[in-house]
């Protein structure tokens, strides 16, 4: 099962990846390339890592029945928007509002990294789907 590219227009790209670890690097590479092509070179690595963390959570905790993870990248002019969506079981978003883990914890840093690297991170989760919405302002 290979990634499915669903280009929408020049400033928007949708890609579906199979829900497995092997997809993470490929997804990171796609997001980095999109960021670079749209003038977000300075933050391309950060945006790509934040996206990989969001996808990793899906692979580890919520692989959906359709077996896919969906990414939408948008060049919104003054910012780049990345949305990561899955149709898994969802979870209670309050679980990630309990604050960062202790520095010595072995797990639980994904959301901390996403929030540290991006300017905005919103997580919406309910029955049947989870959407992680991330924004990075264009460097001046």
């Amino acid at each position, binding site marked *: 099962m290979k990634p499915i590219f669903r280009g929408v227009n020049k400033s928007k790209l949708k890609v579906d990846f199979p829900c497995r*670890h*092997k997809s*993470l*690097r490929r997804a990171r590479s796609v997001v980095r390339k999109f960021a670079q092509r749209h003038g977000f070179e300075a933050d391309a*690595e950060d945006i790509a*890592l934040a996206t*990989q*963390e969001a996808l*990793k959570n899906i*692979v*580890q905790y919520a692989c959906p029945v359709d077996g896919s993870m969906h990414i939408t990248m948008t060049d919104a002019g003054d910012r780049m928007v990345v949305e990561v969506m899955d149709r898994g079981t969802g979870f209670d978003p309050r679980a990630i509002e309990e604050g*960062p883990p202790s*520095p*010595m*914890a*072995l*797990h639980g*840093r*994904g959301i*901390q*990294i996403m929030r*540290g*690297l991006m300017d905005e991170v919103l997580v919406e989760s309910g029955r049947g789907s989870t959407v992680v919405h991330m924004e990075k302002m264009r460097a001046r």
Partner: protein
Amino acid sequence: MEIQAEEKEGYVLVTPVGELDVYTVPLFRKVVLKLEGDRRHDLIMDLTKLTFIDSSGLGSLIETFQKVQSADGEIAFVIDNPHMLKILKLVDLDKVFHIFPNLGRALEHVGAAGGYYDEEFFSDLT
């Protein structure tokens, strides 16, 4: 990913090359944690050839740190990549790990902390 491990006099130098992420952490754990075993080692983790790290990679560094410390060893990290440092700072690991910009400085740290004072040898000289 490749992991170079050299047993030096008094310490072990570990140099992961490439990407340390959810995909390569199992190999890293297998090599580094086995290397440490139950023996007391001082360890220098040279991360200057690491091109990428994610939260799983960070977890494996913490696990190594804990393992070395629980055996009363010393561990130092060599990091010269600003992006890598930025990620460690994001999760406050810069406050926990002993991080140095080059191998020489890390050696000084491990040497100083892992050395010993031979009272008998020095007793004649003082």
